[in-house]
């Protein structure tokens, strides 16, 4: 029955744990809409024929009690739908504790993912089947929206802050990622894919892509701390200066003077950002004192150093 209705309404495959529940509510609501619509239209036609001009007319109209009854019944049905709908919605907004966190950056017309082990990927996100995956997303420029029809999940990606979405793939396959919030000329080309793989196959793939050196741990830490919300790695300045080619360069300071961006300066800027402010950037960076331990800060500086080469 579910498969028949799904195919009839052209719904995509139910590839996540949410899909089945949402589709069931979907069938009920759309079914009710069609039934009500059909009843109302048949009633209209019947009245139009039965009470056309010249036919005998009953004295009394439809009593108020029918009206109140219909209104009350309809309101109850709507509220029930809201209760079920909101319960499902709340589950979709609270990721489980053991979810695999993948850091996502949406940029005008592409998706970039950073896996927990530091490996980076563009447009294609590989996830193991059966493992809850939580995406911590931010945007580099305008509002985008991470939308996987097969998983029935969608979440806008807002610049300047992080938004979350989570899902659990329940079958292997390639499920398209689309951008649902209008973001410019390339809005319809901003497509990627979630590739759900059986756990064994995923572990093998991951082994090939494990990155263990300090720089990639630094990259993972930077992603976790949300540095990518303001700093880019490809040279284009954003809210803060880009890390590409930063290490070792002399940078102009706010209020005159300049300094060489070495380990000391980078560590100090992490702990007390406004001390030596890079000229031309707003004083926005919060302090990471107490949030980053010594070795963690060193790992991030190591990652910035790894970016000192050409673009």
């Amino acid at each position: 029955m579910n498969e028949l209705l799904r195919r009839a309404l052209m719904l995509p495959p139910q590839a996540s744990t949410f899909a089945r529940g949402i589709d069931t509510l979907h069938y009920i609501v759309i079914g009710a809409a069609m039934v009500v619509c059909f009843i109302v239209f048949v009633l209209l036609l019947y009245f139009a024929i039965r009470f056309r001009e010249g036919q005998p007319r009953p004295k009394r109209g439809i009593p108020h009690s029918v009206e109140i009854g219909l209104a009350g019944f309809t309101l109850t049905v709507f509220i029930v739908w809201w209760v079920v709908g909101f319960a499902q919605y709340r589950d979709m907004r609270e990721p489980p504790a053991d979810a695999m966190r993948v850091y996502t950056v949406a940029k005008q017309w592409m998706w970039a993912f950073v896996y927990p082990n530091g490996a980076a990927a563009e447009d294609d996100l590989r996830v193991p089947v059966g493992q809850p995956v939580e995406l911590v997303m931010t945007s580099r420029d305008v509002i985008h929206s991470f939308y996987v029809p097969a998983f029935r999940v969608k979440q806008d990606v807002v610049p300047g802050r992080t938004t979350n979405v989570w899902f659990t793939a329940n079958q292997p396959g390639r499920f398209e990622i689309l951008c649902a919030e209008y973001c410019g000329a390339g809005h319809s080309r901003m497509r990627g894919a979630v590739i759900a793989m059986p756990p064994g196959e995923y572990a093998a793939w991951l082994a090939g892509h494990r990155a263990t050196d300090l720089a990639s741990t630094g990259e993972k830490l930077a992603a976790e701390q949300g540095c990518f919300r303001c700093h880019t790695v490809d040279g284009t300045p954003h809210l803060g200066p880009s890390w590409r080619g930063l290490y070792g360069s002399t940078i102009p300071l706010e209020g005159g003077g300049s300094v060489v961006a070495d380990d000391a300066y980078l560590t100090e800027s992490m702990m007390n950002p406004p001390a030596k402010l890079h000229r031309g950037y707003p004083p926005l960076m919060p302090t990471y004192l107490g949030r980053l331990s010594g070795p963690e800060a060193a790992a991030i500086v190591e990652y910035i150093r790894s970016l000192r080469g050409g673009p």
Partner: protein
Amino acid sequence: MNRRYHLAVWIVIASEALLFAGLFALYWSYRGEYPAAFSSGVALDIHWIGGLNTFILLTSSFTIAWSIHMMRTLRPRAALWSLAATVVLGLAFLALKLFEWSIHIHDGIVPGIHYYSGPAAGRGISLFFTLYYMMTGLHALHVVAGLSLVVWVLVRVRRGTIFPERYVALELVALYWHFVDVVWVFLWPMFYLMR
């Protein structure tokens, strides 16, 4: 016959209130997001000017209400004087407001988040001052509009076209002026008192 004019002015007041509602919603939402920045922003505002301006506007509300009372008790000359007082008070408010802005701009506090170079630093402070300029600016525009209406009514009272038997225009302008005062009644604590 005057019923439609009163109704119309009250509808204008309601729609102007909604115009300010947009900015109030922005203020309260950003205050919810950056409470510390907004508190330090309020601390930076010049409090004596805010307080004095409140007193001035409250008094001008009284004087215009008084002028209606004078008109109703058949003393158009006294009504004229209290209208003049309202105009003077209104101009004083605007002068103080411009003076306050000049001090702020001198300190490097300017509207627009990219130009802010004022003393307090951190996220949200430039938002506070951009909102400050927008809300006090929009309010100042309404003070100018209200004031020109009061001047127009004052001229007609002097010319005698508004007299004790027909003074609906005075009542309508007074209503609008009271509304402009009510907006300031809310702006004052938001920008000067809520540290």
